[in-house]
């Protein structure tokens, strides 16, 4: 029964049609922009590019997601949808999972689709692509969990975008570090599994503590309206 509710919520998030697709595409465009600007700024030396590639991909993924974090819950809160969900007896953490899952699916697919082209542009071997994609996927999901929490906390504040950025940095640091290490290991041809396992553990940990905390934040926001 939870699963049918989750599916209903998930379909609601993903099936909004053009608006969500446009959001995902603009996030992908931002990602590409950062990934292309960087080599232009750094200079074409292939060794240096390959060295920095892992960090670059991760920073690009994080920065391109930030504008969407800000808008994550605000529309549903303002329209009264969250209150309606509460009155239907739907747990808000389920709604949060569905929302994050929907966003993950919509945003990770273009990212992974762009990866082959990025790898070529930065001189990475195509053999490292699968591990790259895997570590990026796991890390991005952890990022979304934390970003959702930051979004729930800062929603409704004055200058919420700035507040969000201040909150995100210390929260994301471990994910960023382990993610970049996983990517760099796979680029260098070394076993990335230990890093990916750490990323998975981190992701699972945040998947357990973030949605209830975010639910608490949303309920507090509803209280204060």
């Amino acid at each position: 029964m939870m699963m049918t509710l989750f599916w209903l919520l998930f379909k609601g998030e993903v099936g909004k049609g053009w608006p969500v697709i446009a959001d995902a595409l603009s996030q992908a465009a931002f990602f590409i922009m950062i990934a292309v600007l960087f080599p232009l700024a750094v200079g074409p030396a292939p060794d240096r590019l390959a060295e920095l590639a892992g960090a670059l991909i991760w920073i690009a993924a994080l920065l391109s997601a930030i504008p969407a974090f800000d808008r994550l819950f605000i529309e549903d809160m303002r329209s009264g949808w969250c209150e309606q969900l509460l009155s239907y007896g739907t747990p808000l953490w389920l709604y949060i999972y569905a929302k994050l899952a929907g966003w993950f699916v919509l945003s990770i697919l273009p990212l992974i689709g762009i990866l082959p082209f990025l790898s070529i542009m930065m001189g990475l071997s195509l053999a490292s692509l699968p591990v790259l994609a895997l570590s990026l996927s796991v890390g991005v999901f952890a990022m979304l969990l934390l970003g959702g929490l930051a979004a729930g906390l800062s929603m409704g504040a004055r200058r919420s975008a700035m507040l969000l950025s201040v909150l995100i940095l210390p929260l994301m640091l471990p994910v960023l570090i382990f993610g970049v290490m996983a990517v760099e290991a796979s680029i260098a041809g070394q076993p990335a599994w230990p890093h990916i396992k750490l990323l998975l553990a981190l992701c699972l940990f945040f998947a357990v503590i973030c949605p209830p905390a975010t639910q608490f934040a949303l309920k507090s926001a509803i209280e204060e309206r």
Partner: protein
Amino acid sequence: MANLKFDALANPSQFARLARKIAPICLFGSMILFGWGLYLALFGSPADYQQGESVRIMYVHVPAAWLALSGYLGLGLSALFFIVWKHQLADIAAQAIMPVGAGFALICLITGSLWGKPIWGTYWVWDARLTSMLVLFLFFIGYGALRFGFDTPEKGAKMASILALIGCINLPIVKFSVDWWHTLHQPASILRSGGMAIDSSMLWPLFVMFAAFQLFFIWIILHRMLWMLALRRLERRNQTAPAATARMSAEQ
């Protein structure tokens, strides 16, 4: 630390009475210890054979680091009490700690940077401890920004408390990740994570300075809490709204 024993001091007026008695003792004690500690630190202890006189910054840097960390844990604990028991004193305690903890984190960063210049040649290195302290500082700032970023302080209080809790949970993870990153990226490091071996002749002045700073910290927190309690009482007194009277009619 006295500011953690809230179950015993649940009543605000009782707390205020106790705090007013303890605070001057703390201030007095810390002033004495500071005097003694500074004498020991500057004159009564030897310079390091490797670093010379600049090692004396340690007597400020290390206590500041400890206070920043324990301050954040105190913040997290107060936040927990506030969320679970909705206790006003817990919220006041958290608010009191935030700028002080942030200040000590900043002192730790600045003294760490000043200490590092003669040793490493630069004002900043991304070593595990300094980076973790920077993240801690950001967590403090995040708490303050959330707290006061809303239109009314009540809105921000709950959100900031959640952040404080998540921050406490996250802190060991951050420390671990920065440690690991550091060891993988910088194999040769002058400042190993264990720190330098501290000679026993430096331990005693360090303890005295520790105690001095700790008492000073407690005094500041108690002082701020008393001030905030008084402010809130004043606000409440000014809000004499007419009591609502409602009536339920009969069935019509």
